Structures are given as structure tokens and as C-alpha cells.
């Protein structure tokens, strides 16, 4: 028997998921519905994440933090598990997904992949549990898309390292217990673990954001920050190391952005069914149906792409160019879906009473961070033509 058509799963993608994958997805969905969704509009409006620490601990209990890493208290889940979790988190809010992405895929991954055994033992279990929060400092005020030109420096002084510089737009910065800071040294770019409270280190909050408001974004100030020799990540040599971390987090965005689009679509679908104008529900107008059909194609094609890339990743076959493909397509589509959904909601579309405008403005950040649309276009351009067009 062919199953009936489900407007929420028009491609019957659930049939491609294992019982375990569905269980993980449903757990994150339930967690978000109980603990985050009731408050997220207010947090966004206030521009705060007041219970970030508590949330992190709850997420740690679930196993969300660094969930796709093995050992050191991490859940050891698959790439598809991780993707499904990102999707549900971002269906709630991109800022919440960012908290988890930065913790797991940037900060924890950097330590897990490039750290010494001792660094892993010291930091990872607490980070997996959500007792310790991490951030990842690559971007600087004057160097974003081109981090290879960074100014932040680390110089040797005896056995110690002394760091100087500024980082900008650092997610989780002000609440972090440990910052993974990338700095230039005499022998290329290296990563350093900077515990909060180290003299000379500060992480002031950045204000006046109109996007990702339910997420902590900070500056990192490093003025003669003295660190012992073992603060450096021994295995991370060169720009490739932070880029490797970004590739992990980006993979999560491929999935996460689908969630944001899904929420916008579902909100619009429901609204179109109940709101009446000219004596008919909005859903009865052909123009509305065209929008709904188009949004559905975009959201679920993106979902299909995410699942496909996830399966490739689990099979150890996923290339960074393919992650660029996914990020470029899925974020762009999700943003388009939000904008269309917003029109269906009319004036309510701009109100925080509904999730649509929140997702729409959030996605403006998601479009830019972890590699802008232009950067991923150039990555694909180079992969297609063999010619790098980044400079000159």
C-alpha cells in the first residue's frame, strides 16, 4: 500500500530514516518544544540568551554537545544523527543551533581533532556535559572571508606564548570558559586554548544586532595574554586546521537551515488555511498555492540534499566542495522561503508573535557566517573550472 501524502513530509523522507534516527530527531524536537520554543520569541526580542548555561547543561544531558565525536563523554552519534539534531534545533532558532554548532563542531572538534591527549581529557568531558562552554575565534575586525591574513599573533617568550590581537563576531564568546583562538606565529597559523579569566583576555558582548539575537556574539580582546606551552593545539598547523573545523560546522548548517525554512513554511501553511479574506481562506487563492508549492519544493529538496550529504559523510566520502554546495543552496533557499512565508502572513509576518521574521533575520547571519554565499560560490567555481578566483 502506498502511504498517504503527508504535507509535512511530502517526499516520505521519514521512510529513509532508521528508527534510531527518528528517535533522536523526536527527542530533540520534544526538547525544543518544551524548553526553548515557549521562550525564544522573548529572548530574541530582548536580545539575550538568559539561560544559556542551564540550557547547555540540559543539552549536555541529552548528548547534543559534540554528539558526533567519539569518546571523552561524547555520544558518538552518526553524521545523520547530528544533522537531524541541527535541523530540529534550527527549526526552533538559528541562534540555538549556533550555540550547539560552535560548541560541538568548532570548539570541541578543534580540541578533539587537533588537541593533545591531555587537552582532550582536560576539556572535552566538561564540554560534552555542557558544564564548560567553548567558543572559536577566527574572524577579526579587518579579516573575515580572508582569515589567512589575520593580524592576531602569538610569539614565544621562553616556554610561554604571548598572544595579542582582536577577534570579532565570536559566538558564545562572553559565556565561554575556554576560547579556541587562532593566531599567526613564526611557523604559520596555530590554535591556542585560552581559559576565560586569563589576564589580558576579555570577551565583551557585541550589541545592536538585528539577527541571531538569541545568541551571544562577542569580541575577543587579547592584550599580552600569556599562556603556557601546552595551551597550543599540537596537531593544528596552518590555516587548514581552522578551515577543517568550519567544514564540520557548515555541514550542520546544511541541515539546520532546512529547519528554519520548515518552520516558516509550516507557519505559512497553517496561517493560509485559517486566515480569511474576500470570504475565502488565503490558501484558496491560486497565488497563495503557488507560493506554498514553491516553498515546499525548496524546503524538501533541501532536506533531500542534506540527507544525501549526511549519508556521504557517514560513508566517509563527503568532500568540502560538497559541503559548500549544500550550504550555498540550503541557506539561500531557506531565506527565500522565509521571505515568501512572510508575505503570506501579511502584517503578522513582521511580528515576533510568529516565528517567521525571526527566522528570516536570523538567516541573514547564517548566509554570511561559516563562509559567505560568495565564498562558497567561488569554491564551487574553482571546483568546476580549476581556476581559483578568490584574489587578483
Amino acid at each position: 500500500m502506498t502511504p498517504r501524502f503527508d504535507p509535512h513530509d511530502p517526499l516520505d523522507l521519514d521512510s529513509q530514516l532508521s528508527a534510531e534516527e527518528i528517535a533522536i530527531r523526536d527527542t530533540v524536537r520534544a526538547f525544543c518544544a518544551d524548553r526553548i520554543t515557549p521562550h525564544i520569541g522573548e529572548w530574541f526580542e530582548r536580545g539575550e540568551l538568559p539561560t544559556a548555561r542551564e540550557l547547555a547543561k540540559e543539552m549536555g544531558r541529552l548528548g547534543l554537545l559534540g554528539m558526533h565525536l567519539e569518546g571523552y563523554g561524547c555520544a558518538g552519534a552518526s553524521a545523520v544523527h547530528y544533522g537531524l539534531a541541527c535541523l530540529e534545533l534550527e527549526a526552533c532558532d538559528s541562534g540555538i543551533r549556533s550555540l550547539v554548532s560552535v560548541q560541538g563542531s568548532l570548539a570541541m572538534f578543534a580540541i578533539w581533532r587537533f588537541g593533545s591527549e591531555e587537552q582532550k581529557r582536560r576539556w572535552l568531558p566538561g564540554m560534552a556535559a555542557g558544564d564548560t562552554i567553548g567558543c572559536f575565534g577566527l574572524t577579526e575586525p579587518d579579516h573575515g572571508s580572508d582569515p589567512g591574513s589575520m593580524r592576531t599573533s602569538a610569539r614565544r617568550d621562553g616556554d610561554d606564548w604571548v598572544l595579542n590581537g582582536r577577534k570579532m563576531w565570536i559566538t558564545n564568546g562572553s559565556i565561554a570558559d575556554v576560547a579556541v583562538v587562532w593566531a599567526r606565529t613564526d611557523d604559520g597559523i596555530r590554535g591556542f586554548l585560552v581559559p576565560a579569566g586569563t589576564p589580558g583576555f576579555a570577551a565583551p558582548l557585541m550589541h545592536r544586532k538585528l539577527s541571531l539575537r538569541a545568541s551571544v556574539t562577542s569580541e575577543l580582546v587579547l592584550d599580552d595574554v600569556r599562556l603556557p606551552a601546552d595551551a597550543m593545539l599540537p596537531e593544528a598547523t596552518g590555516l587548514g586546521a581552522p578551515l577543517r573545523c568550519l567544514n564540520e560546522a557548515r555541514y550542520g548548517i546544511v541541515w539546520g537551515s532546512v529547519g528554519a525554512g520548515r518552520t516558516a513554511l509550516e507557519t505559512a501553511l497553517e496561517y493560509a488555511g485559517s486566515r480569511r479574506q474576500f470570504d475565502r481562506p488565503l490558501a484558496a487563492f491560486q497565488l497563495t498555492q503557488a507560493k506554498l508549492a514553491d516553498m515546499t519544493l525548496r524546503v524538501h529538496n533541501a532536506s533531500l540534499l542534506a540527507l544525501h550529504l549526511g549519508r556521504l559523510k557517514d560513508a566517509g566520502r563527503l568532500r568540502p566542495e560538497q559541503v559548500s554546495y549544500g550550504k550555498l543552496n540550503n541557506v539561500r533557499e531557506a531565506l527565500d522561503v522565509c521571505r515568501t512565508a512572510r508575505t503570506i502572513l501579511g502584517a503578522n509576518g513582521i511580528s515576533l508573535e510568529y516565528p517567521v521574521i525571526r527566522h528570516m533575520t536570523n538567516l541573514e547571519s547564517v548566509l554570511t557566517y561559516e563562509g559567505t554565499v560568495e565564498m562558497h560560490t567561488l569554491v564551487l567555481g574553482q571546483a568546476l573550472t580549476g581556476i581559483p578566483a578568490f584574489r587578483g
Partner: protein
Amino acid sequence: MNIVVLVKQVPDTWSERKLTDADHTLDREAADAVLDEINERAVEEALRIKEAQGGEVTVVSMGPDRATDAIRKALSMGADKAVHVSDEALHGSDAVQTARVLAKAIGTVEGYDLILAGNEATDGRAGAVPAMIAELLGLPQLTQARKVSFDGSTVTVERETEEGLTTVQASLPAVVSVTEKINEPRYPSFKGIMAAKKKPVNTVTVADLGIDAGEVGLAGALTTVLEAAPKPPRTAGERVEDDGTGGTKIAEYLVGQKLI
């Protein structure tokens, strides 16, 4: 302490619940099935007791193949193993038959000290099965528990009913059924979810339990549903005009409905 928890797959209270036209049994296709919320609380209580005192938690469930989802959920929350009674012959069994089957299934679990169950399922809402099981096993029954504690081999329960609160005690082994107030169930952790598929689930038929298939199911049920009709749509309600006595009238109404 070794604990048996009874769990049941029920139609999600959010989905439309129907009886089939053919035999007035639950239309299991019509609604999403989930682990009954009250069972989640029973599982949670069992896990808390286990975490405090050690021991093993065994889930026992009777139901069609789909009940494996409810069992998996309980296992992913942290239960250790499960017994699943699954048999075509069980279709349409009533409360007494269910209790008999479950009592036999519980009998396959070695050395249990406590049987935990939800007070009443959100579908049938008979609320009789835990008491019947206690009777069949010759064990004390402590129903409607909102708090459970132990002292050696004595279990103490705060029992809450519409009449008020009583404290009841029994010696173990005993049957305890819990209410909504007992606790907030945990979310299954990812590690728990991934570990669940490796935990043993013993699937048995009624014959395996030494029960004759003729004793169970719709045909042999002691109760029969003759007719079923959907709930009539909500009526307009009663309107109280406030001519100064509005408050009193509302209070009288609420007392009449036994709401206060």
C-alpha cells in the same frame, strides 16, 4: 531493587482517536502511536529508584508489533531489558484478560521486588489493570501514588484521590501505580537511544506463557462494546448573568460539577 514496569503503546492524545466500525476495537491505523505519557512517568520512577538503590528495570508490554516503539523508548530512557507479549489472539482483549496475560508475563521476570505501572492508560482509562494484576499475583496494591519511598523491604506511598491524601504502606514485593504528579520524565539521551537497540527484548506469544489462545481476545472477553458514537460537539455552555449573584452562581455550578 529489581523493578518491572508495565508500559503500553497508545494513540497519541493529539491525534484523532477512533474505534473501528468492524468490532469497536481501537483503530490503531488512524492515530500515531506513542509510549503512554503516564508510562513514561512509571519508567522514570523506576529509573530513579534504580539509580538510588541499584538493581535492574524490566519493561513488560502487551500489544501488537508497533508496541516495540514504546518498549524502545523505555529502553532508551534507561530500562535494562523487556518482555513483549505479542500475539494476534490478543486482539480485543479486555481488562481482565490483559491483567491475566501481564501477570503471566511478569512471572517470567526473575526476582522482582516491585511492579510499577501508570495509574490508568490515556486510551482505555479503565484504571483497573494494576489492581487486577496485584490480585492475580497475590501482592499488595498501592494505587494512585504521587510519591514513593522505601525503607528496607517496606514501600510507602502517598496516595492521592479526589477525596484527599492518604499514606499507605506495604511490604515488598508490591504493585504500585503512579499518577501524573509523580515526576517529570527525562528525555532519552542519545547514548541511551543508541544503546537501546542492543538491549534484550524477549518477545513471547500467549502459548509461550502457558495461556490458551481461546482464553484471550475479543471472543472470550468478559466485556463487550455494543455500540460506539463519537462525542457530541461541544454545546454552547451555560451563561451566568451577573446581577450581583454571579460569583455565587459560578461557585454553585462548580460545586455541582464536583470541581471544587
